[in-house]
């Protein structure tokens, strides 16, 4: 898992959102930051907080029970 990448994404989205809270940017900039920044913040936070399988259980977890097409 790319823990480092998730931390960077969380930091970037947090900084962008905080910057818009502190500075009065033009509306289109705030909308862009909100539209991409809020989902990115939740996504990166979730990827960090979610529990991961133990190394010995990983294979079992990712195995697809259905064969698909």
């Amino acid at each position, binding site marked *: 898992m790319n823990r480092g990448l998730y931390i960077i994404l969380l930091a970037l989205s947090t900084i962008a*959102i905080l910057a*818009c*809270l502190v500075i*009065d940017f033009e*509306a289109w900039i*705030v*909308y862009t*930051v*909100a*539209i*991409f920044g*809020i*989902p*990115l913040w*939740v*996504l990166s*936070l*979730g*990827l960090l*907080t*979610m*529990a*991961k*399988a133990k190394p010995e259980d*990983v294979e079992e*977890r*990712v*195995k*697809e029970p*259905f064969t*698909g*097409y």
Partner: protein
Amino acid sequence: MNLMAEILIQVVIAFLAGSLLLGLHRKVMARVQKRPGPPIVQHLIHSLKFFFKETAIPKTVSKVFYVGIVFILALVWIVGVIAGPVAHDSLLILFGVYAVYKIVEHNSGSSSGSPYGKLSCVRAVLSAATELPLFAAIVLVYLMTGTMNIGEIITYQSVHGPLAFSIPLAAVMFFMLIITKSPYSPFAITKDKALISGFETEHFGFLRGFMLFSESIAWYVMLWVFLTIFFGPLNAVGYLIGMIVITFITGFINATTPIFSPNHSVMTQITIGAICFFGTLLMIFTGVVA
């Protein structure tokens, strides 16, 4: 108020109110079916709980797409919050949001390797029939008010009275969309229990929590839009009562109606949409509506 602060507050309100309303919806359905049902806060607790649950990405999924589609689902409903409660912008943006939501249903199913997800993805194409009555309702609102801007529609209603009384059939069409998007709906062919959880089957753990987060916002935005464009300027108490009443009504309907087969679902939606659309046109052009 700072624009970002306003957006954040509205997103948090949408998430909390939407979660509690969906919890209420489950409770109403349970009571109608003579079950105690889960507590009203259960949906909210589930959404938060899943953020800490073990999550793995199955081997058969398309990885980037599998995670990306959940991100897009949240993105479109943040756009919904901005276009609706925050900016009172055009109804066409909200129509676009619904259209992209349909694409999310489709692609969420297809990105998973599961046949259940894929079958749900195929049904998502069929259930695009829902968008026709929605578009027709927007057209009728435009014919009456001469604008698609939500702010101007509110102003129109403050002068002429709520649109629900002048073009009730258009309101019925929009209400049908709300029923379609409500949990356990008779029109929810993409989430038929025969398909396990439909397009969400392979999204579990944190990703399911993220989807529940977006769906709570979606429910709030849909109810907000319906109340705003058909029941005129409302204060916070008006919105609260309206949302609770609609949640009760949809809960009753869904608890007592079995899910339709895909062809019946599509034909019912199109038939109701056509009757309401031409009925409203008739009312407008024969002068029944001033």
